[in-house]
């Protein structure tokens, strides 16, 4: 699973040229991470599948707008994020502002694998994740699922870097607190 962090050679240029095999390889690589991200935000299987499908269609249509091939993953998650937020707002979701939260201290850890969860804690982990407000959950999922950097998460969610840091810091602290309590 640590393979995510390793730089991948994705056939983005071939996909841009309309090669179906390249698209197949790209979608195969991202279909489950995208689904996990979207599902953990909307909690509905059919809606999540629809959002993944819409994301794939938008990716094929707008691949010309992607400047840096290495940022394909972040770009794809950005599309999925936008589509999820649009749906969320359509169903009356309210924007929760976290900008007033002070920035976390600099000893912020970057690796999602710092957090290890025992089998008996898995249910609690999922329960707590679902209790988090959507902006915090979104940031935490992007961190866990694809190990995106703070800058990439800020770009995907179209928020300030400081805001992403705050959200991630407080979400991880809440998770840690829970896991320590359960020990």
């Amino acid at each position: 699973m640590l393979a995510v962090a390793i730089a991948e050679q994705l056939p983005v240029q071939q996909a841009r040229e309309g090669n179906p095999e390249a698209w197949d390889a790209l979608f195969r690589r991202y279909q489950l991470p995208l689904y996990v991200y979207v599902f953990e935000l909307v909690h509905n299987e059919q809606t999540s599948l629809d959002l993944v499908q819409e994301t794939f269609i938008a990716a094929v249509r707008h691949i010309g707008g992607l400047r840096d091939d290495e940022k394909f993953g972040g770009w794809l998650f950005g599309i999925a994020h936008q589509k999820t937020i649009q749906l969320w707002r359509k169903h009356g979701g309210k924007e929760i502002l976290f900008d007033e939260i002070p920035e976390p201290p600099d000893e912020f850890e970057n690796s999602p694998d710092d957090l290890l969860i025992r089998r008996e804690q898995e249910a609690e982990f999922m329960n707590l994740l679902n209790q988090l407000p959507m902006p915090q959950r979104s940031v935490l999922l992007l961190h866990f699922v694809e190990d995106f950097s703070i800058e990439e998460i800020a770009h995907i969610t179209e928020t300030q870097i400081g805001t992403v840091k705050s959200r991630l810091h407080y979400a991880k602290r809440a998770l840690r607190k829970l896991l320590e309590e359960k020990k």
Partner: protein
Amino acid sequence: MKTPREILFARHENVEPKLDAIRREIVGQASRLSPFEKEKSETGATPVLLLLWRELIFPCRRIWTGLAAVWILIFAVNFSQRDPAEMMARKSPAPSPEMILAFRQQEKLLAELIGSNEPRIAEPQKSFSPRPSSERRFETLMT
């Protein structure tokens, strides 16, 4: 012990066949959806227009739209400030030869009518050319 990623992925493994079906469907349509393929099919017909559109117009479409809006505004202002009489004159058709003939006859008749009551034309004034006084005296002696 598991990482959050492993936990999250394990929860959704069963949805993989559905995701595979979606992927296959989109990949099957990729050539139809891809803008690159569309461009390739259009390039054969109108390559210059396509090139102009892609290189000149599309990248600066906002600027072009702004320029077009400014020109439309200029035309609108110019059109609204035109003299209506001039426009009417321009709109009226050219007079027919019969009308021109009738007009000339009327003009001739009018000239004749005016001409009968016209006072005599006064004799033209003698032109005065100044000469030296010595010359005038010589003329008097000669007469």
